[in-house]
């Protein structure tokens, strides 16, 4: 077990931190990536402006203010060194698990599922936060347990439990979409951390049977989502309404769109949740295929940038954090886009930085802060004292 006793870690933090001047640290932030983030948020502002009926209220302006906070937070997080992050990973993970437990106890029920928690006036979605916490704790674990040690399957048991705990809690909310994203982030980290292929095979093979078992334990509304996804036309005004309306709106956008602020389906409120989960539909209707593809390309560039930043990192922890955050962002985008285009069942996953909503935006910005931090400290070899300690 890694030794994370506070006094030693704190001593190290105080000893090493003055070496890096704040200004040079700021210079080392990947400002081009920050620009890409701002661009994405700009697209979101435009879309929310349109969703608000061509007005900055009620969506665009609050979201912009939140983004401002998010950027500040991102930069602060970006300056934290991997050591500090590893130090924080355990309390953060424990906190996120506690919040997930709390939300089950006293969460605010929204749309048939307990997902929200009230935190001093603003509502917070612990499952968003849990993803970041999981990335951090797994990166910390695999940082300490090198690729070589993973040949022993017993070394995988603790990280597997670290993954399963939030997955089960999120499933109980119940939020199938986020639970599967959490699971996939965990699986990605297992994969790049250097699991053996035979281990992967042993884990993947029973999935179909497991899937069957899970389906039989799904809530009715979750089953209904899968059913209406498969046959949306059965209930065009009920549960299938969202998918059908979304496809209709996208189709009516055509190649070049109906024009900004002139999308008939969105502006006439045929689009459900157009400012949150279905914001991409609104963009697709008003800007057409050209606009939609531009957004997809921008999302892809951000994902790949994150991946490249992870690749570039010279310490294992940073690589794993960078990749985990990039995969988190990627999964967000893919699940949302697939849902909007009717590829997978509808399931409350927003489009990061574009959809209206506070906690998703802030947790994502926190994640981007971590990603930037791995870039800032990309050349930190980070042998770590515990490595010397354990070897």
């Amino acid at each position: 077990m890694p030794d994370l006793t506070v006094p030693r870690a704190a001593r190290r933090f105080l000893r090493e931190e003055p070496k890096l001047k704040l200004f040079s640290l700021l210079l080392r932030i990947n400002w081009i990536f920050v620009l890409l983030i701002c661009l994405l948020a700009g697209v979101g502002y435009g879309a929310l402006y349109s969703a608000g009926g061509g007005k900055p209220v009620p969506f665009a302006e609050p979201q912009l203010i939140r983004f401002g906070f998010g950027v500040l937070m991102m930069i602060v997080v970006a300056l934290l060194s991997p050591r500090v992050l590893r130090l924080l990973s355990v309390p953060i993970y424990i906190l996120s698990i506690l919040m997930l437990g709390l939300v089950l106890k006293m969460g605010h029920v929204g749309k048939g599922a307990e997902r929200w928690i009230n935190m001093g006036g603003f509502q917070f979605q612990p499952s968003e936060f849990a993803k970041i916490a999981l990335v951090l704790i797994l990166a910390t674990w695999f940082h300490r347990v090198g690729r070589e040690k993973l040949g022993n399957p017993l070394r995988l048991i603790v990280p597997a439990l670290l993954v399963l705990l939030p997955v089960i809690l999120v499933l109980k909310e119940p939020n199938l979409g986020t639970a599967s994203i959490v699971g996939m982030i965990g699986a990605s980290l297992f994969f790049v951390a250097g699991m053996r292929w035979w281990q992967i095979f042993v884990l993947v093979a029973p999935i179909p049977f497991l899937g069957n078992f899970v389906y039989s334990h799904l809530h009715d509304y979750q089953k209904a989502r899968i059913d209406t996804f498969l046959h949306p036309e059965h209930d065009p005004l009920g549960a299938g309404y969202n998918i059908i309306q979304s496809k209709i709106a996208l189709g009516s956008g055509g190649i070049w769109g109906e024009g900004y602020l002139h999308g008939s389906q969105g502006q006439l409120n045929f689009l459900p949740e157009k400012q949150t989960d279905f914001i991409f539909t609104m963009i697709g209707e008003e800007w057409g295929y050209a606009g939609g593809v531009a957004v997809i390309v921008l999302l892809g560039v951000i994902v790949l940038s994150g991946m490249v930043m992870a690749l570039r990192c010279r310490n294992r922890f940073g690589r794993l954090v960078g990749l985990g955050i990039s995969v988190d962002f990627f999964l967000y985008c893919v699940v949302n886009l697939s849902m909007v285009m009717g590829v997978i069942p509808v399931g409350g996953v927003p489009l990061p930085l574009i959809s209206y909503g506070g906690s998703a935006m802030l947790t994502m910005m926190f994640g981007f802060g971590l990603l930037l931090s791995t870039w800032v400290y990309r050349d930190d070899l980070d042998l770590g004292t515990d490595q010397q300690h354990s070897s």
Partner: protein
Amino acid sequence: MIFQRPSSFKTFEASSPSKESERGASGRGVFTRRALLMMAVQVGVLGTLAHRLYNLQAVQGEQLRALARRNRTSKRLIAPARGPLYDRCGVLLAGSRPNWRALLMPEETTDIGAVIERFASIVPLDERDHARIERDRRHLRRYVPLTLKEFLSWDDMARIGLNAPTLPGVLVDVGSTREYPLKELTAHLVGYVAPPNEKDVQKDGTFALPGMRVGRAGLEQTQDERLRGHPGSVEMEVNAVGRVVGEVERTEGLPGNTLGLSLDSALQAQVRDRLGERIASAVVMDCRNGEVMAMVSTPSFDPSLFDSGVSHAQWNSWMSDSRTPLVDKAVSGLYPPGSTFKPAVAMAALSSGSVSPEERFTCPGYYDVGGVRFHCWNRYGHGSINMRQGLKYSCDVYFYQVARRCGIDAIHQAGGTFGLTGKLGIELPHVRAGSIPTPAMRRKQGFHWNGGDTINAGIGQGLVQVTPLALATYASRLATGRLVTPHLLRTVEHSLVPEAEPGLFGKMPFTAAHLDVVKGGMFAVVNEPQGTAPAARLTLPGIKMAGKTGSAQVRRVPRALRESGHFNSMNLPWEYRPHALFICFAPYDNPRYAVSVVVEHGNAGATEAAPLAARIMTDTLLRNPAERTPFSREGQSPPVAPSEHESHGKSS
């Protein structure tokens, strides 16, 4: 390369794994390979999504755009305006006035029942509304709105507007309701409209439109197709909750035709006032072209009550009224014609050659045949009289003998020629045909014919039954010698209908000489001393009227009572008194108008019907032609030129 690489740090290439720590290098090669693999997958997934987007937006775009258009527009059929009815002077008889109503668009709400319930809590619906909504819901169509409530008040509309967010699919619009300004004056002729029933809707889907009405009586019924018009449609842009935000396309429906009647509503009112409280009917016809100028049946009813549906109480009170206000007695009332039938019998005898005008028959006050005694109305008898005198005195015995001589078949035939047994083709529903049965017809119905039936038929009693309209037609035909048929419809969309053109009628198969004998008799009835209807003499200078009285028994007078010499039908209970009838035409030398009057249980035609008819005829002759002008004359030759007697009337 977008990623900066500060020189103060070792480059990726420069750093060999051996120089790096064990921890930093741990699995880096594996990480790089697998991360690159994941990036490839990520690019593939995003590419697939972009492809899917292309499919949706470009390939299926056209089809989905059509869906979007259907989404945002809502097609609605609009009921056409029902055509108005005017009288010959341009007085509105049936029109439309706005009717604010609440409609429910079925396609814009998912739970119709809940919306109706909520609506009912805001605007109270009575039992009949609920019943109608239930009925309409059974054959609900997507584009056809459901009428929740009609004749909304301002308060109702304000309440609906205030609660609009909780009433998805409910909207208020303005339709029209049928209005009859003259109310009961023309109710029988104009008829009324009522909401369509299930049968109508099955026959023609457009009846399901809110505000559609179907004619249920009078001209509204017979001219329904002309008045109805064709529905238009309007395509509205609506938002997701069905609120209309704009109009995309509008196809105007075709309004129903404007119809002009031959009726003169002012004359109609005069006639109605003349009849007063009597249960009676009167018909004024232009005997040259068959135009019905006035046709009154009393009592009447208010036709606008039908538009919104008649209450049970109102309906029951009409149905239990022995005066039958809903029945147009002028066309549906069958009465024995009594002595007014005698001119027809005379014509039958003359044209069959069985009796000559000057042949005399003796009237001792009674006539015995086969052991049965038939009385004359005058028990002292009329002596030896010819045909003119027979008509003038209305001698029953004379006509008993004439009828026996010429036979029932000849009477039947002549009666038919005079239009007494036909439906006459007037544009009204429920027209009943009169009957002059023959032995052959009676046999078919399983009855035995006896000689007395023929004798009774000679004085228009017994089995003979005619309508007041047929009597007026009969008078017109007597006056003109032509086969005049009555009609009410004069113009459609301001142009004369072919039937309204004068001079189209063929001659009757009677010689002028014979007709003149009968007309002479009718002249004598009114204008000569000892005629039966001196009370019908016109006071207008230079205009003479010819007519014939009739008193039709509704109950056989017992022989003993009659022979006692104390019989007076005025002593009978009202409902057993004879009907009083009178037919006439004027001016005698150049006939223009024919009038028939039937007063139920009026006791005697000479005292009750004849003076009425004379006054009605006077009213008709005095109608100032200048007052008849307003609307139908533009661009057309006046169908009726003012003639001498009218200018007489004006100057007097």
